[in-house]
């Protein structure tokens, strides 16, 4: 861990508001991407991302510093996502928001886009459709497989980081990843 990161953690422990904002600015994109890919729903993803940062600040005194801060934050995010998936499954809330609506809203800076088939050129339409299909394929994976695929193939983290985040040995991570990729291959065969 770098000296800069140590100082940042110290400031977080001292409840320094500027340090708090620094951490959110540094990690909000990666945390939000992970939660969005894991949950497949923008509103749930935003809510869980907020909970992740609240947990980070509440638990910072317990952070031992034996991993990078980013890895620790990813670990919290992964656990929060798993908990939310279980909670949603229990509630049997299966009403997933149309993914292309989410993409349109965020790409147009918070403004809800018009239906893709009315206004968008063919190439954009294809892109949105492809993204929706890929997102659906990811969402159909078992949550443990989904997590390793998102961390490795979307967030492009190293195996070492993934092992620290998931707490799994490298062999298990690799075999899960291979199975997940093979499952995606089947689902996306005609893309």
């Amino acid at each position, binding site marked *: 861990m770098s000296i800069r990161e140590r100082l940042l953690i110290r400031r977080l422990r001292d*409840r320094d*508001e500027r340090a*708090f*904002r620094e951490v*959110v*600015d540094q990690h*909000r*994109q990666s*945390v*939000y*991407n992970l939660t*969005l890919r894991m949950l497949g729903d*923008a509103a749930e993803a*935003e809510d869980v*991302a*907020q909970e992740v*940062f*609240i947990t980070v*600040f509440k638990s910072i005194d317990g952070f031992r510093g034996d991993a990078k801060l980013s890895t620790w934050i990813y670990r919290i995010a992964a656990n929060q996502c798993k908990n939310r998936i279980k909670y949603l499954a229990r509630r049997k809330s299966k009403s997933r928001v149309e993914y292309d609506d*989410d*993409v349109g809203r*965020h*790409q147009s800076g*918070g403004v809800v886009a018009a239906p893709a088939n009315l206004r968008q050129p063919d190439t954009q339409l294809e892109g949105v459709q*492809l*993204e929706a299909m*890929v*997102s659906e*394929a*990811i969402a159909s994976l078992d949550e443990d497989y989904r997590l390793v*695929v998102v961390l490795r*193939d*979307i967030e*492009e983290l190293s195996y070492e980081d993934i092992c620290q985040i998931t707490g799994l040995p490298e062999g298990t991570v*690799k075999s899960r*990843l*291979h199975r997940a*990729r*093979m499952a*995606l*291959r089947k*689902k*996306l*065969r005609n*893309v």
Partner: protein
Amino acid sequence: MATADEKDRRVHAWFEARFSALRDGELDGEEHAAVKSHLDECAACQTAWDDFDGALGALSSLNRTAAPPDLGATVEERIRKRSGGRFFGRRGLGDRIPFGWLAALAFLVLAVIYLLVRASGSGTLRVPDPQVAPPHLAPGAKEAMPKP
């Protein structure tokens, strides 16, 4: 005895099991060359590899959806609400008081007082006032004192 089809399946499965490692560049030279040469010869494995590689390509081409710009502000607001505004303020009492430092300081003060008391001839910290004359005996009192 295994049929030719079963053998083929096993061979394909052996190569498919190495797709992830091939994609991640984790095969050693010999194995990498063997897989590559098999892909050149085997149409079924080449198709499977193309599907595999295409699916992972689609994953990595996913747009990074921008995080909501007000995420930080919303988190701050939530924290303030839940902690009643105490979270970011300096804590008045509780685990933020540096008890260790206070104890060391108290010990130091006590040690200084002890040394001062030891150093003073009177056994007290009171500084003698030069304006107050030392007590002296009344005239004739010395004579009046009983002699041993």
